[in-house]
């Protein structure tokens, strides 16, 4: 197990290196630079800015410098936000995004699996159709529409929750719901189809032939086996969600990390692009690693060995 994790961590570092390198060069290939704007800067100022940020050095020196800095967890200064470093941006924005993301994941997971289980147990009955209508709505209605609908009814009309901003726990509920709607619907569909598959298995008939009731069969024999696909979906989902959602954060005026992701690209804010990409990758890769480890606990047939996967 320890050997397996060490090996996976090494792979993780290697993947990270590839991601850094690819982003670094793709970013330079894109036309424009951080200092192109409405107003053309005088060449002298441009040159001194380039020198200040080290952009006048040859690309391989910049690349080498960057790798060294990243190894020390230093993402460098932002080109756009004066006197703020990328580390500052991440340190300020990430806790907010993380809180919102975790809340949304918990909502999505709880409601999604619940809907999926009900739908599967009541296959082709009204409960099934009802749950799947909710799921289709959740998948097809984009989160920003869901957000405005929630704001309109729950905040403006009925005054249950505040409309926007990020001050108290009450403020977090609406954005978390909006953020959770799509993954919840996806998890519901995933759970349903996987439950139906498990329920058709011979060992469910065996469980029934032992005289176990429906509840015992569902809890002991079905859910655990049906949750594997959901667990594997949790990896990318949690990475995507905890690193922030640009749209939701904009709508609710939340100071999260999501907006930096998008803004940095159009700003050609090289260090921010690199920083948040690397940060996002680290979260994604660790989430996937955690999911793989969780696999081994859920399904004993999957052995976490440093060679091949068991059976």
């Amino acid at each position, binding site marked *: 197990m320890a050997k397996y994790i060490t090996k996976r961590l090494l792979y993780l570092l290697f993947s990270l290196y590839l991601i850094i390198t690819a982003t670094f060069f793709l970013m330079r290939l894109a036309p424009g630079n951080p200092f192109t704007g409405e107003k053309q800067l005088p060449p002298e100022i441009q040159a001194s800015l380039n020198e200040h940020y080290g952009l006048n050095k040859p690309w391989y020196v910049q690349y080498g410098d960057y790798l060294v800095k990243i190894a020390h967890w230093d993402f460098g200064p932002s080109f756009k936000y004066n006197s703020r470093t990328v580390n500052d941006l991440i340190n300020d924005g990430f806790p907010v995004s993380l809180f919102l993301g975790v809340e949304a994941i918990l909502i999505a997971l709880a409601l999604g699996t619940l809907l999926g289980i009900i739908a599967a147990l009541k296959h082709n009955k009204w409960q099934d159709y009802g749950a799947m209508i909710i799921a289709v709505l959740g998948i097809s209605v984009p989160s920003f529409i869901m957000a405005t609908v929630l704001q309109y009814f729950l905040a403006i009309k009925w005054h249950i929750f505040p409309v926007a901003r990020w001050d108290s726990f009450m403020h977090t509920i609406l954005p978390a719901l909006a953020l959770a709607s799509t993954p919840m619907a996806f998890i519901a569909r995933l759970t349903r189809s996987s439950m139906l598959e498990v329920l058709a298995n011979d*060992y469910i008939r065996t469980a029934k032939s032992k005289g176990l009731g429906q509840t015992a069969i569902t809890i002991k024999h079905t859910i655990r086996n049906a949750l594997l696909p959901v667990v594997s979906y949790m990896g990318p989902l949690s990475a995507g969600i905890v690193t922030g959602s640009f749209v939701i954060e904009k709508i609710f005026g939340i100071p999260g990390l999501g907006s930096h992701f998008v803004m940095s690209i159009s700003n050609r804010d090289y260090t921010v692009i690199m920083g948040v990409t690397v940060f996002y990758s680290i979260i994604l890769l660790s989430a996937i690693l955690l999911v793989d480890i969780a696999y081994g606990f859920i399904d004993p047939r999957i052995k976490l060995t440093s060679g091949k996967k068991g059976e």
Partner: protein
Amino acid sequence: MEKLLEVKNLEVSFQTYGGEVKAVRGVSFDLHKGETLAIVGESGSGKSVTSQTIMKLIPMPPGKIKGGQILFNGEDIVKKTDKQMEKIRGKEISMIFQDPMTSLNPTMKIGRQIMEVLTKHQNMSTSTAKERAVELLRLVGIPMPEKRVIQYPHEFSGGMRQRAMIAIALAANPKLLIADEPTTALDVTIQAQILELMKDLQSKMDTSIIFITHDLGVVANVADRVAVMYAGQIVEMGTVDEVFYDPRHPYTWGLLASMPSLDNDDKSELAAIPGTPPDLIHPPKGDAFAARNQYAMAIDFEEEPPMFQISETHFAKTWLLHPDAPKVEPPEAVKRRMRKLASTFEKPVLVQEGKS
């Protein structure tokens, strides 16, 4: 002998998009205490549906018991609710399935899967159940049961898994054990071991067994009585000797003739029954076997044959036993094994409708 199970005129159908599949069409048989009844027949003959209906394990819907009774200890199972069935399944009647690879839950330890039965039906505490699970594994011949009990099914071989299945099935000392092709998925040496084990445990626990198989060799080995099923009906039923040495139904002849035997000379080809079983959405008029039967007479295509009784225990559903039927010779391979049995009646007796 005391009757444990009485199945009377059982009819089971499945509603499908193509129409109603009449999988079991009026099956009647009984089973005594401690007896082993083998049900044989090809795929789709309704043998598995019959046995799963006894435990009400068929999915309902699309399955439906259209008629008949299943009397277990005198009580009609057909009328019981799912809640009442939970007290019967695993405790009074239990089942071993065909494929031990898929019949055990892959994410649950073998011991826990046995303990479930014990805690449910024997009111055992977890720790007593654990000890009992080890004992049961030892009883079914699994070496090092203390170690095996905490392993998962994928750490067991096929034969070991079937032994574990047997341990689960016998955990609550059921009165009836239904074995649905328990050896089909196993290789021949393991088959023999499993059959030996089942016979051994049966004599120890005095359980009745319904043994479903299409392997006549297995039947000869384990059964007291045999029921031959075709197209959802029992076409011949008798003791092992009667069915093997004095078969009367042309379908049974076909089955016996297609069984490879060491006495077969290498010149004669192994016989096969031509054609395929009939469509049970629209069962044929007359005898369901008529289209594949080389001995079929005109009446076979018109009217369903009644049950004839050949001895106290031997029944066959064919017009060939009618007094007006011409005398026919069974195939060579069957004739060679034919014997005169002392219990046979002078003449086949027509069984009155609704009884067998």
